[in-house]
């Protein structure tokens, strides 16, 4: 009896995932990394709506499997030349996460998430104080200076762009840009690691930003109070998405998809006549897409993609990108303060990196620390939502400059 059981177990070993694990020990490391991110998502509250699906997807795709038909995700498929036959292979032979990842590769999910974000964004503070746009623009300096750093580190153009966009502090934009740029690129980077880094740093904004903010501003500056903003009229709020889409499409056409969907969502919301659609766009549709996007993007984090030097570079450059973006925003805010004769609290500059609404809350918090009666939240929301538009424009620039 024991002999038989032993035979079974040894037979099982041959055909089971244990053999797969023995063959690829790195998978174990990858699973541990996925556990780390699950921990960060669940216990530390790091952007759990995305990091939890991403980390579980990472776990699923690193489960050992001997036979290709048992694999939930086939990393190898995504380095092959893509054609309609390849599409059929993914649909017919692929695992579930391969099929879901098609929505990322075909650029569908990020646009739909932007639609949902549009229905949840209030551009009122930005309309009330359009100069906030400049802060949202300046904070994109993080993107471009990181491109500079990555370029001088000898990375390829596609890699530079993919890493730089992390500085946009905008998950869907990062996924959109990196999945386009790295499509077919000869790189050890992939969309999954970019997304991991982007969402991790977005969650770390309350850790990364405050020291930089305190370093770059004086106590006196932080105490500056700003007057209450006017309330824009309904008409302005409805005209705004149309104007922004038009201008962005005229100047940076490759940003039109992202900005267009963002503004489509926003006009649905502001019009007040399509409540049904707004509700679905920001709940059912957005959540379905988030689940599919998260778990399939996470699945791209396989051992060969992550356990290498490139991922370390991504992590280092990513935090630099965030810091530089914060610094650029603060810098322009200081200039604006100087030009306005001391009427602009420089703390609102750091909110320009986007990471909505966290970065704006950090501005509020730091302002309140300097003077508890200081209420900067609405003033910081302007640069904050401008940062979303700014990142999308920067994404458009990268996509039009780097041929993919």
């Amino acid at each position, binding site marked *: 009896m024991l002999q038989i059981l032993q035979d079974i177990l040894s037979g099982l070993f041959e055909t089971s995932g244990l053999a797969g694990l023995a063959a690829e020990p790195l998978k174990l490391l990858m699973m541990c990394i996925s556990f780390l991110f699950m921990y960060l998502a669940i216990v530390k509250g790091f952007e759990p709506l995305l990091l939890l699906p991403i980390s579980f997807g990472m776990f699923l795709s690193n489960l050992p499997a001997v036979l290709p038909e048992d694999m939930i995700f086939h990393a190898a498929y995504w380095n092959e030349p893509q054609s309609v036959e390849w599409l059929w292979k993914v649909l017919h032979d692929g695992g579930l996460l391969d099929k879901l990842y098609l929505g990322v590769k075909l650029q569908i999910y990020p646009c739909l998430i932007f639609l949902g974000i549009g229905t949840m964004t209030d551009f009122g503070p*930005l*309309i009330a104080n*359009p100069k906030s*746009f*400049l802060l*949202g*623009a*300046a904070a*994109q*300096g993080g*993107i*471009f*200076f990181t*491109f*500079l750093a990555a*370029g*001088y580190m*000898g*990375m*390829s*153009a*596609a*890699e*530079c762009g993919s890493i730089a966009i992390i500085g946009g502090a905008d998950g869907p934009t990062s996924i959109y840009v990196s999945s386009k*740029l790295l499509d077919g*690129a*000869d*790189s050890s980077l992939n969309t999954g690691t970019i997304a991991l880094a982007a969402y991790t740093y977005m969650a770390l904004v309350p850790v990364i930003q405050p020291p930089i903010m305190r370093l770059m501003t004086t106590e006196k500056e932080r105490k500056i109070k700003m007057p209450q903003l006017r309330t*824009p*009229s*309904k*008409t*302005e709020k409805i*005209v*705004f998405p149309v*104007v922004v889409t038009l*201008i*962005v499409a005229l*100047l*940076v056409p490759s940003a039109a998809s992202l900005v267009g969907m963002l503004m489509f969502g926003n006009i649905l919301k502001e*019009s*007040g*006549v399509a*409540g*049904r659609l*707004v*509700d679905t766009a920001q*709940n059912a549709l957005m959540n379905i897409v988030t689940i599919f996007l998260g778990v399939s993007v996470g699945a791209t984090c396989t051992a060969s993609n992550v356990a290498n030097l490139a991922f370390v570079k991504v992590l280092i450059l990513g935090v630099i990108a965030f810091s530089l973006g914060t610094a650029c925003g603060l810098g322009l805010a200081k200039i604006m303060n100087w030009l306005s004769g001391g009427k602009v609290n420089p703390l609102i500059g750091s909110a320009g990196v986007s990471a909505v609404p966290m970065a704006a809350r950090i501005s509020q918090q730091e302002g309140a620390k300097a003077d508890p009666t200081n209420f900067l939240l609405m003033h910081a929301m302007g640069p904050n939502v*401008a940062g979303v*538009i*700014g990142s999308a*424009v*920067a994404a458009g*620039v*990268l996509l*039009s*400059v*780097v*041929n*993919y």
Partner: protein
Amino acid sequence: MHPLLLANHLIMLAGGIDGNKRPLDGSEIWGVTLVGLGVVIVALAILVILILLFGKIFDQINKNQKEKEAAAAAKKKPKQAPVKKVAAPVQEKPAQKPSTAPTVQTVSAPVSDEDEVIAVISAVVAVMSEQDGKNYRIKSVAKSQRSNGFSGRSAWAMDGRRQNVNPF
């Protein structure tokens, strides 16, 4: 070539950089950085100007409208009251967006031409919306922003919207 000569970079970058190119030369790196940041700033600066402009225009419009309104109110004081009364229930629904302003619009809508019978219709509308209104209020509490904070001007525009609450 000095890396800060933006225009030159622009010309260089016109054809784009091959994604797999590695390493990038200094001119390309600086080109992307400066031109990229430049484009973002220019694009958003144009938006600053436009949105400021629109703000001014809408302010002007609002101001004009309020003046007209005041004048109209002075003129049509007796007529205004009953209409308001009828329109009121439509506005009372606990929506998410302050809807008192549109009420004024319906009133000042100079009740264009169609409409000697508009009072009759709006009475019907009022009766309808009373029934409808009850249902409606419960719905919006339960689930989502089904309520339309915005309010059209003509009678049938209202009807059109109402249709779409239930629709299609």
